[in-house]
């Protein structure tokens, strides 16, 4: 019975095979289904909050009516959402977030006083974002730079 010497080798081999199979299946399940889903959900939430935070920041940078307005404020934006850079633009009194992934893009109306005549400019997520408010008592311009 020379085969008997093979028993431990076969046994260990089987164990190694099983462990590898198990780890492979676990990785497949987590990376194939669970992780991307979480990533998308978290990214959607981050995108929403980024947009709202930026809008809040712009709205709160408009000072009360005064004869000369000159305000410069920095806005903190996450560098990337879902590992991709994005842009925030002002279009027709709305704030638009442009992301390579359409489901993570979004738009939000800004609530600004009537004396704000224009909101314009673009922020790139990987550049410092600054909001500038210039104007006088009757006309105020908001520039994203």
């Amino acid at each position, binding site marked *: 019975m020379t085969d008997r010497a093979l028993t431990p080798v076969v046994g260990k081999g089987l164990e190694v095979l099983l462990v590898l199979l198990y780890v492979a299946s676990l990785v497949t399940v987590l990376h194939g289904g*669970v992780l991307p889903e979480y990533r998308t959900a978290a990214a959607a*939430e981050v995108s929403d909050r980024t947009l709202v935070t930026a809008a809040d920041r712009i709205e709160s940078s408009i000072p009360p009516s005064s004869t000369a307005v000159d305000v410069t404020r920095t806005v903190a934006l996450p560098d990337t959402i879902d590992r991709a850079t994005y842009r925030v633009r002002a279009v027709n009194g709305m704030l638009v977030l442009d992301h390579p992934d359409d489901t993570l893009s979004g738009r939000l109306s800004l*609530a600004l006083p009537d004396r704000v005549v224009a909101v314009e400019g673009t922020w790139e997520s990987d550049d410092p974002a600054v909001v500038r408010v210039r104007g006088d008592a009757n006309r105020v311009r908001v520039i994203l730079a």
Partner: protein
Amino acid sequence: MRGQTNLAALVIAFVLLTGATVVGVTFADAALADADRNPRDRHAATAVADRLVAADAPTTVRANALAAAAVDDLNASQVETLVPPAKGAAVRITLDGEPVVDRGSPAGGATVRRSVVVVTRSEPVRRSINASRNTTVRVPRGVDRAAVDVEPASNVTTVRANGRVVLYDGSALETNETVHLSPYEPSTIRTGTVGNATGRVVVTYRRPHTEPRILTVIVDA
């Protein structure tokens, strides 16, 4: 399959590991579901509250002081024009629980409260100055403007409030103007005349009455 007891141990280990993974994923799921905050609702509600109480809003007399008449006339479309983020959302605005604007029925959504005062103006109070006898009119504290009506041919050239010239015409006033007064102290209105003053100057003002209230805004987009 003698001597393969290790395999049994391995299978038990796998089962335990799988169980731990499932528990972990379940917790992660719950955490993710909890993190859903509806920032848009909050933004819209904050924007509505902020715009309604802003000093330059059509609903206020100054910052955080709502004009009772404007609040009574407030409706949902006005709120939308004033605050674009509230467009199409269910909005409920109340003052101490009394509904001001109610559109849709916000189920959930974000709630924002602001402490405000509501300013009601009294019926007009009329006081007259006898220009020929140089009498004065005392306007109480808190009144920030008054209408001054100078009768024609009364020879009044100047109207002063606490010594400050508010109306002047070197060749006799003949006007009905609204003048701004300091609300922080009582104002004494007196006239300055040239030659023989006759007739009357009528001062009309409304006394403001303020009441503290809690403004509650609920927006559900």
